[in-house]
Structure formats: structure tokens, C-alpha cells
């Protein structure tokens, strides 16, 4: 899967997992900061939801919550992480 297709897929998945549908797809730009207050302001439990999503959809297991939070700063970095780690 190329990066653009992955990003589009991630937008849909994240929107569903984190109940963000009402925000509209546009709010989920690949560069928007996921975990900081000037972005979406997601919290540690959201990070865990993303950990589960990574495991179920891409077979990547992230054991450490802190690692998750740093790696997933935006949809773009998340896509890069998936490309680098997917078996």
C-alpha cells in the first residue's frame, strides 16, 4: 500500500476508533498534531486505542505507552511508523 492510500485509510480508522466522525474528514489533516492542545488534544487513553488499532489492523504491537505517544504525533508520523514496522 502506498503512503497516500495508507493515510486515507488511517483517517477513516482513527475517526471511527476515536469517535471523531462528527468533526468531518478535513479536520484530520495528516500534519495535525494528535496529542497536543493546539491540535486534536487526544489523551493517553486515545493513545491506547491507537495501540489496539495498530495491533489489530497492521499486526504491529507497541508495548510501551510512552513510545506510542511519541511515535504517533500525527497521522503522517503514524503512517511512517506503520510502513517502517509492518511485517
Amino acid at each position: 500500500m502506498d503512503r497516500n492510500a495508507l493515510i486515507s485509510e488511517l483517517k477513516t480508522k482513527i475517526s471511527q476508533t476515536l469517535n471523531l466522525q462528527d468533526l468531518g474528514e478535513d479536520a484530520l489533516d495528516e500534519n495535525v498534531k494528535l496529542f497536543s492542545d493546539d491540535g486534536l488534544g487526544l489523551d493517553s487513553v486515545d493513545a491506547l486505542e491507537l495501540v489496539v488499532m495498530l495491533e489489530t489492523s497492521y499486526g504491529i504491537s507497541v508495548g510501551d505507552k510512552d513510545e506510542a505517544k511519541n511515535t504517533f504525533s500525527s497521522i503522517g508520523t503514524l503512517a511512517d511508523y506503520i510502513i517502517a514496522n509492518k511485517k
Partner: protein
Amino acid sequence: MSRIPTAISTGLCTCAGVGSAVAADIVFGGNGDLLKKLDLFDSPRYADKFVGRAFGYKRGFATECGAILMAALDESLSRLDAKAFNSERVGVFLGTSIGGIFETENMLIDNINSKSQDLRALTYYECSTLAELVAKKVGARGVCMTFSTACSSSSLAVSAACDAIEQGKLDAAIVCGADSLSRITVNGFGSLLLLSAGKCKPFDANRDGINLGEAAGVIILSSADFAAKINAQPLAEFSACSCTADAYHQTSPHPSGDGAANAFENALRKSKLTPIDVDFYIAHGTATRGNDIAEIAALRQVFGAHKLPKFASLKRYFGHTLGASGILNCIMAIESLRRCKSPANAGFTTKDDLIGDSPIIETSVGNIENILTSSLGFGGNNSCAVISKKSKKSFSDQKPRDVYLFSCGVLTSYAIGAKNVFAEISKADFNLSALSNVCQTASLLKNVPILKKRKWAKLQQIGLQCALEATEVIDIKSSPERTGVCMGTGLGMMTETFRFLKNTIERREAEPLPTAFTNSVHNAVASLISLNKNFRGVNSAVTAKEISFESALYQAIGAIDSGDIDAAIVGGADEYFELAQKYLESRRNYKASAGRLADFCSLYFAGAIDACITKPFAKIVKLDISRRDKSPTREAFAINQILSLCNDGDNRIKTVFTIKGINENLDAYIDAVLEKTNFSDPLNMATYTGLNYSASAFAPVCAAYKFGKGRYAAYICASTGMRSLFIFDIL
């Protein structure tokens, strides 16, 4: 006359076996290695996790949790004259996070696999079931209530029991904490990545999470006078307790431990002790990254940077026993005072610079006078106790205060807000069964941004909607630290709990739902209210079937009288849930014409007269919660006695409210009792609210809107055998 709460007996069942002394031998020997691999149920994902499994108790009881609790209770009663507790001056206070949910999980598995429709094991999901067992066994006829605030549950029970004894409301209390292992806690903490890969290392630089454990603990508390009367030897005194909330995040503690520090300060002040007087701190110390840092930061705020008391966590011995962990700590504190020995923190080897201080790793002998202990629950729900050989207080200075209701918030399945609800009710053709029994979530919290509310479950949104209604119309004077939230609930967060469990079972633990788990705790509504309103006093979820609201009110009044808070949001909230409706219908005494469950919440801003600038609309005259007499005639006599004290001259009771429809036998009983009073025509609130365990929270707002000024009584019988008589004035 001394009303200092005194421990006169304890009982315990843990992974060390049955007995307080057995567990203490491990702790004060400092060398327990009792954690074993999880084998309670088939777990594809967590079979290699270490847990503390209780043993030595008699099996064959309806629930594992109940069996473990009975072992602890038997031990606590074995040293005393058990008959002494057969009294209306003895209450039961129990803390549990999940009660007998393991058996409910087994039922769900059967239902899913074999399409069995047997729902009887749903009763074990109800946290109030355990307390009821204890009360029946002991014969206690005073209040009987259950606190379910995740990991701090039994500490809240201890605190409420101490208030009741110190304020002279009870002579003695059976205080319990119990939690057994279950799929929901294993998978839930697993989904939060909080389970240790091995055995936990509290306060260690390399700590990596918790081991779950099961335990039940019982402390029998009494006034010193009652102890003397029944020839019981005092073991230790509870100098003070305090409960606070962080109002910081739904799961994470405040990083600098502000809420816990408030609790420590309150408890020391109420104990008339200074930090120097504290000889030891038995920590919550779960061995998660977040807790251990926040906990010691809190300690440092109170004790100063260089003179922390010696401290140790007991989690490596027993695992994190969740709702039982608070009472387990208290029992070990009592043992420590009695043995003049301080415990050691097993599992610690490497200092963590982020924490800055290290726990005690060797037990030592020496005089110990006062121990501080705490439990810090999910979402910053903090509770602590100062336990002393001899309290510095020679008498209690707690005085009853008049408690008023300043405002209300109401939501029914058919309308939001008191005005709208009563506009519907006053229509001539009002008929609840013709209306929807679920409210429209989209119409809740309209002014709250989607990003903020997207994770909140329906019942949480309902509770917050009502809290906003109640607080918008008043000028609050009580400070945020001195304002609590005490919410009654019969069934708690049922939708979220069963969504999590069904997913766990059907997906074979493959795809956890962390958000659903964090929302599944009974205190999710109270936490959300505190988080949004910044109310940082005691924060609790109280459950006692049909008298859950009254039990929450009882706790809030106790906390107001104790001086810990000046005001609190007090109410009741329950939601429609299909499984609960089916369960209700499957019960023998269900009458189809009585109606259905429905979404409902009603809450009040309650407090001392100076808690608000705004004038109150109601005043609490009397709240009496007791076990009712089986004979309607004798029960009517007892009710008449209480009513006659409040039903004189200008203050005649205008209307009596009740709840009928949940249980046909109970309905007949209520009619038989009230017929023998002057109130044979009670108003059945379920007509307006649906058949909810929280329906009785409707009484004050209903009186105010429907009838106006005057005195009212709400007589509620619970299917547990308890009843409450709540008398109030609309001003």
C-alpha cells in the same frame, strides 16, 4: 463519652490464605513470594501474567468474591460476641469495584455459546449484593451501603463508617472491602498496558505495572464506649480519614499529587497531628509509572522535601487488590501498630530519580504511634486514613449541620431539565409507557465541543447535563476543594461494562476497548462531573438498589458534618439497558403492567446554609435508613414513630412519595405499611421516572414543582430488605 472510631476486630483473606495474622506474617517477615500465573479462566492474551489468588476459603458459595468475603467476615466475628451486632445501631459499609462480576461473565459466556437465556447471575453484577450478605449474616439493621469507586472503594467505606460512628449515628460498623479476579479487570488493565510483565516493583526505577490480586478484608469498627460494653479489646483507633478528588483526568492521577496531598492535609488536621507525628506511610504504591511518582510528590507537598515518613507498598505481596486494597492497607496498619513493626516494600532494588525517595526494604522493630495509609483510585479518587495506637483526639468535635438543597438538575427519557420534565408531566394525557424510555444522546450537552464529549458514555452525559443545570442557576460559595460529588446508582455503567465484556468474550481478548473500560467504573458519572466542575472534595458512587440515592445522601451529609466538605452534588442516575430490562421481566415478582426501565437522573446541589449565596429551595429534616421489619404492622409502628417527630402542628407532612412496580410483593408490603400510617395514598415516582433504582432521587424536585411549599416524606423500600425514610421541607 468517646466516639473515636475504634477497630475491635479484623478479618482477611488474600493470596496468603485466610487470616489477618497470616498475611501480616508475610508482610512483617518481608519475604513473601505468593504471586502466581493467572489460571482462573482461559485467557489467550494474559495467561502469563502474575496475579495474587486468594485461597483457603470455603468454596461452593454463589460467587468467588462472596466466598472470599465470608472467610474474612468469619475471622472478624470469631473473636467477638457476634450477637452484639444484631442491632439497628450497627451498619455495613462495603467497598468493591466489581463485586461478583466473574459469575456474571460466566453467564454471558453461556448466553453467547449456548443461547441460554438464564439471566439470574446478573444479580452478582450488582455490587450491593455482597453488603446485603454481610448484613444478613451479622444481623446488622442500620445502614447498608456499597461504595464502588474502583481502587479506592473500600477506603471510602472506611471513611463513611468512621463519620457515622464519630457523629453518633451508629455504635458499630462492619466495614468490608472485596474484589476477586475477573475477565473485566484483567483485560481492562491489560488494555491500559498497566499489567507488569513479571512481578511488580513498587517505586523501583524499573517498575512496569501492576499484578492484580484478590482479597477481602473486614474491620469491625465501634465507638470506644460500645467496645467497652461488649468487652471487645480495642486494636487501634482511626484518628481521621479524608477523601478527595483530583479533577484532573478520567484515568491518570494529577502528576504532582495535588488531590492526594489535600486528603493527607485534611486527615492530619482532623487528627490534630503534625507531619512529624506520622511514623510510617503504608502506600498505595501500585508500581505503575504514573501512580508512584504522583504519590510521593503528594507526600512531599505535605511533609516537605527532606523529611518524608518511612514508606512501603504492599503490592508485591498481595498484588493490587483493587477495591479491597484500601482496607487491606488499613488492616496491615493495625497489625503494624500492634506488633510495633514496620513493613518492608518487597520488589524494590533500584532508586528512581524521578521519584526521588526510596521505600523501606527491611522490616524494623520500634514504637509506632501513628500510621498514614492511602488508596488512590482511577481518575484521581483519593482516600487516606490516619490510624493510631491512641488517637490524640479525646473526643469528637464533629457537629451535625443543617443541610439544604439549593438547586436541582433532572433528566428523564422524555425531557431534559426540570421545567421541561414537569411541563410533560402536567399534561392531562401523560403516560410514560407511551413515551420513549431512552433519551436522545444528540440533544445532551449541546454547548460542549464534540472533541471534548466524544468519549463520554450516555449515562455520563446524562449526569453531567443535570450537573450543569443544577450549577448554572446558583452562586456557589463553597470552595472547589470543599465541594464533593456523591452519586447513587443501582446498576452503574451497565452499557459500557457489557460492551467491554461482550467484546472480550466474542473476540477472545483479541481487540481490547480501553475507553470502554475506563468508562465502565461505577463512579464514571461522578468523576466526569468533578472533572468538568472542578469539584475536588469526596467523589463517590454509592449503590444500594432502590435506596442508592438516599445512601449517597447519607454519605454526603456525613462528609458535610465531618467538616471535610461544605457542599456536594448529590443525586441518582441509572440508564435503560436491554439486559437489565430482560432480567427484571424474568424475575418472579415482576408485574408486566408496572412499566419499564428508563434513562433517568436527578441531582441536587446540597450543602450547609453558607455553601451558596443563592437561597435554598429545600431543607433536609431527617434521613433514616434501616432494615425494615418483616411485619408491616411493626414496620408501620416504627415509621409512625419517626413521622410523629416530624409531623406536628404547622409541619404536617403533605405527601408521601414511594417507588412501586419493581417487585409485586414489595408493592403489597408498602401498601400494607402505609395503610397503617396516615399516608395510604403515596405518590409512585416510578410513574414519572420509569422503574429505576435511582427513581427516589426525584422526590425533592417533584415536591417543589408539583406541590410547592411544605413538608414531605419519601418512604422507599428496597428489594434488599432495607428501607429509607427521607423527610424534607420545600421552603
